[in-house]
């Protein structure tokens, strides 16, 4: 098995120590950082995402893989930056006002960073104006809003409204997700997109930043 396949397999199994060792080996062997990222790490996380979507694996497995990914990215990031790999786009992320749950939001952040996005993570309990202020300050073209609770999801509409009220609808797209959130709900509040899990959030966001 070649080095990158081994790296990808270890990433999928969440072996964070092995992932760091193998990433160092790949760098030392002179493999281009972008290739390590693409062929081992991103493909590994995509496989993790697909298996989670099919519930072959569960949240703990995804969290372990994401942690391993994070370790590998810490090694690769300086090299990728030096190689002038262009950013895939800038995304503002946060959990809606009153909601303290960040597991899903953190996974999306991890996977976006892995996929080459710059992520401005505002954390939990984020007021609508903070999302929009952060998008303006960072030049982000996508705002991602997460909610876990039925008592907080209605607050997502506030973020979409503030984007509209401040005249940014043409420049900043909104995407929502979280356990109680559905596609129908996203459409009803006027969000540009909905994602049912972290991997599909990355796919949808890729489509959103390409918007003219």
């Amino acid at each position, binding site marked *: 098995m070649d080095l990158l396949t081994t790296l990808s397999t270890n990433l999928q199994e969440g072996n964070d120590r092995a992932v760091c060792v193998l990433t160092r080996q790949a760098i030392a062997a002179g493999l281009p950082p972008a290739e390590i990222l693409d062929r081992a790490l991103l493909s590994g996380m995509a496989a993790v995402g697909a298996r989670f979507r099919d519930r072959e694996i569960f949240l703990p497995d995804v969290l372990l893989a994401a942690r391993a990914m994070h370790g590998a990215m810490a090694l690769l990031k300086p090299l990728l930056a030096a190689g002038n790999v262009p950013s895939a786009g800038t995304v503002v992320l946060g959990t809606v006002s009153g909601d303290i749950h960040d597991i899903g939001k953190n996974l999306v952040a991890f996977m976006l960073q892995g996929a080459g996005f710059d992520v401005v993570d505002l954390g939990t309990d984020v007021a609508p104006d903070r999302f929009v202020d952060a998008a303006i300050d960072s030049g982000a073209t996508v705002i991602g809003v997460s909610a876990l*609770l039925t008592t907080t999801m209605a607050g997502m509409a506030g973020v979409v409204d503030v984007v509209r009220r401040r005249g940014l609808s043409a420049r900043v797209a909104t995407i929502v997700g979280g356990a109680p959130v559905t596609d129908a709900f996203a459409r*009803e509040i006027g969000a540009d997109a909905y994602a049912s899990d972290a991997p599909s959030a990355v796919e949808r966001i890729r489509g959103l930043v390409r918007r003219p």
Partner: protein
Amino acid sequence: VIGDFLSRVRGGPTVCGDGAWGSLLMERGLPSGRPPELWTLERPDLVRAIADEYVASGAEVVTTNTFGGSPLRLDAHRLAGHVETVNASAVKLAREAAADRAWVAASVGPSGRLLAPFGDVDPDVAYASFEQQIGVLADAGADIICVETMTDLAEATLAVRAAGTVAPRLPVIAMMTFEVTARGVFTVMGVRVEQAAQALADAGADVVGANCGYGVESMTIVAREFATHARTPIAIRPNAGMPQRRDGRLAYSEGPEMFAAAARNLMLPGVALVGGCCGTTPAHIRLLAGQLSASK
């Protein structure tokens, strides 16, 4: 006068639980994002009114408005100093409404954090948080400790064990939230019904089961698995479908008639308590209670 809860769930007939709290408080004006527990202190009249309506609808259990009342969870809202008042006041309001016609079930929800090794919360810290909340709930006079909406079996068993330590005389209901997938029924953390039923009973739960989720129909599949695997009585509290937004407000897909009709399929051998979770209202519970008494 309502008798002993454990004799009832072991001997039948099926207990009628109450319905949702958080989503109902929102329907009555709780702003989105405001912790529902705060309304026990700020709007006790409204909290009491909901409890009254559930009792009047035929609920034999009144759940306390304490789902997010653990120190870990309150702390995330910078309300850690309110553990005592939030929990004790909620029991008091539920008790006034229940009088001697219903049991007061003290709600204990998840910490909202991930336990180590997947997250950063030490299991001892989570255990202490549950102990503190459950201690207040028991001292305030709750009849039952109701651990609910858990997805991590480690966290759920910590809560059940904490109840056994600080409230050894109170019956414990332990419910987890499951998804029905093409590959079977699991929590998002990967816990199967058989594992949950066994581990929760081993930890000391007197009643095990499921709450929240994706509506009555998928809950029927979860209930069937519990009926196969549980050695204790079973509690089932489905959502009224999934939340949708209509005219700027949250609405749920299953109305009272649909919910109560579909709930008939939940009354399987071993199912000792049926109630509602998010989206259910006193109107849902009224029809459910009728359904339950008709099948006695």
